[in-house]
């Protein structure tokens, strides 16, 4: 009993370290990918080959910055914002399987747990924006509340198709089901598309980064944040991106399973490769497209994604009935 608990705690700690290290890696990767797309080089100096230590330098700098809490903010909400952002980004990883025996908490309601935790993260931008007591942050907070709420619905609807095919909410079961049949991206192309678009909107990345909207709202909800609090928001954002990519890899690309029987590569590596494939796609999209407007964003969600997701569920249901 004691051993099981210790083993669980150890797994959690490993996952935590993994996320934090990966978030730092993502910061560097984003700067490099954006640079190469923009015909530049990106960080080159801090750590001679390709500036690999840039993230470490950035995190150190943010750690040493003065902790400024402006005098007129709502102190409780201001402090709470980054915490609410950071926690769900970490909690989601509890149910994601890294390998055949490596999942921190094999909940049999895995997908439901993820949807629920994701909704908590929604409040982080709103809390920070409202708490900052600043008109720009307020606009940003309103936009984010509308946006994140609207995109929760198609995101969860897209997941339902996968759950119907696998017959279970548990992520390990879903992966096992994909091992028996085929990767669900082949069976759920519509679902995958909806998941990808809604997911990028949920993580607040361009073309859906209206709450941040550098060119319009200066910095939106995090304009009053500096130093470590700001760093927490950003680690949370990259943690969320990573979680979304890991989820896409697990639900649609078979998680840690190897394609074409290439078993000599360890499953953990396959998992990483697939996750980073989605991360790269998300970055590619970010640096290519302009930003949509808030009403166009809402239109996209309510008038396009939700009907498509519902259609997907209907088609999946028909397909299951016909082929089983």
């Amino acid at each position, binding site marked *: 009993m004691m051993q099981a608990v210790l083993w669980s705690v150890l797994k959690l700690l490993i996952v935590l370290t993994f996320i934090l290290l990966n978030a730092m890696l993502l910061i560097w990767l984003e700067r490099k990918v*954006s640079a190469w*797309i*923009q*015909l*530049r080089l990106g960080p080159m100096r801090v750590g001679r080959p390709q500036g690999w230590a840039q993230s470490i330098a950035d995190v150190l700098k943010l750690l040493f910055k003065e902790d400024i809490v402006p005098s007129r903010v709502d102190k409780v909400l201001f402090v709470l914002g980054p915490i609410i952002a950071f926690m769900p980004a970490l909690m989601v990883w509890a149910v994601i399987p890294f390998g055949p025996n490596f999942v921190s908490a094999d909940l049999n309601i895995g997908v439901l747990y993820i949807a629920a935790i994701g909704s908590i993260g929604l409040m982080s931008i709103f809390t920070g924006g409202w708490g900052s007591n600043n*008109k*720009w942050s307020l*606009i940003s907070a*309103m*936009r984010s509340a509308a946006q994140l709420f609207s995109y929760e619905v198609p995101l969860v609807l897209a997941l339902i198709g996968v759950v119907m095919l696998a017959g279970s909410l548990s992520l390990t079961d879903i992966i096992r089901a994909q091992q028996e049949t085929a990767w669900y991206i082949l069976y759920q192309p519509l679902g995958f598309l909806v998941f990808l678009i809604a997911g990028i909107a949920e993580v607040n990345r*361009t*073309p859906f*980064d*209206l709450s941040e*909207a*550098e*060119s*319009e709202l*200066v910095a939106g909800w995090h304009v009053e944040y500096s130093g470590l609090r700001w760093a927490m928001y950003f680690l949370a954002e990259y943690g969320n991106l990573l979680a979304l990519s890991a989820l896409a890899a697990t639900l649609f690309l078979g998680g840690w399973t190897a394609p074409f029987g290439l078993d000599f590569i360890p499953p953990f590596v396959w998992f990483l490769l697939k996750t980073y494939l989605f991360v790269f796609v998300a970055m590619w999209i970010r*640096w*290519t*497209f*302009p*930003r*949509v*407007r*808030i*009403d*166009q964003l809402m239109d996209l969600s309510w008038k396009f994604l939700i009907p498509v997701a519902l259609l997907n569920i209907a088609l999946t249901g028909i397909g299951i009935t016909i082929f089983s």
Partner: protein
Amino acid sequence: MRELTSAKQELHREEMVINMGPQHPSTHGVLRAVVTLEGETVRGVDPVIGYLHRCFEKICEQKTWTQVIPYTDRTDYVAALTNELAYVLAVEKLMGLEVPERAQYIRVIMAELQRIASHLLWFGTFGNDLGAFTPFLYAFRERETLIDIFEKTTGARLTYNYIRLGGVRNDLPADFERETLAFLEKLEKGLEEYHNLLIGNAIFEYRTKGLGVLTAEQAVAWGASGPTLRASGVAWDLRKSEPYLVYDRFDFEVPVGQKGDIYDRCICRMKEMEESAKIVRQALEGLPEGDVVGKVPRVIKPPQGQAYAAVEAPRGELGCFVVSDGGIKPYRVKWRSPCFVHLQLLDVIARGELVADFIANIGSIDIILGEVDR
């Protein structure tokens, strides 16, 4: 019951006055816009300017006629040669100076290359405003080649001090033609890339079509000029209507829009780049031999009087109104800046639209605060 209905009719709406302060990533300089918002809808705009006021017109009265030219560079610093051209044309009109043909051709080539450089910068910053950060670097890849050409010819990258009363300062370097033609080839490929990357993008069209509409009557009544006016359907281009220098010798078209929305303004500017490339090619082919400076008196003393000369700058009608009292310094220099006039338009076109469109509107008017504030 009567109280209930009257309470329902007076739905309380809050208007928020927000300050897009002088420091803002998208106001293209130090523009301050006091925007009255109702939710995300703009109800009124009051642009506050003067943060870059450097007393240009007063300084002109203290310097000699030739010493004014570097100051004109710094008003619209993105298209500096066009400013010099406006001032020099006004003074030459007042003095009745003859400019040799070779100098006129060189001036045309420089002005059109400046137009391309200015529109490239506009393209990049407009993409930035809309959230597309990559086109900016692609546009600057082309602009850097152009700036290198300018540096070889004039000695400076941004503020040139090249056009002089009676001609230009020095002749073109030996490999100017080869480098310029190579640049124009790159530009063609670049323009295609820009279309694929930004202008043809569906999200871009959503953000620009049907927004910021300026009708032709409004445009004329509010004194719009340049692409802002032509996008609304008014075919007024100073190079065609009142040809100055040798523009009447070249075959080029002036793109005119139909609806006057942001999209039309963008397309006008993109097409203008192609037309400028045409003009440069024709000018290089027909470039005559000769002097680059005409006969100019040693001490410049224009006769007493007033003169106004306008050029078609990338942003619109850039005019210079000079008054001389017969002395060695100008008595009065009035700078008719197109962006100054266009900023008034913001209130007209931004009302009833959203904040995001307001940013797109500012970008589509293409303002440079150096010119607005002088």
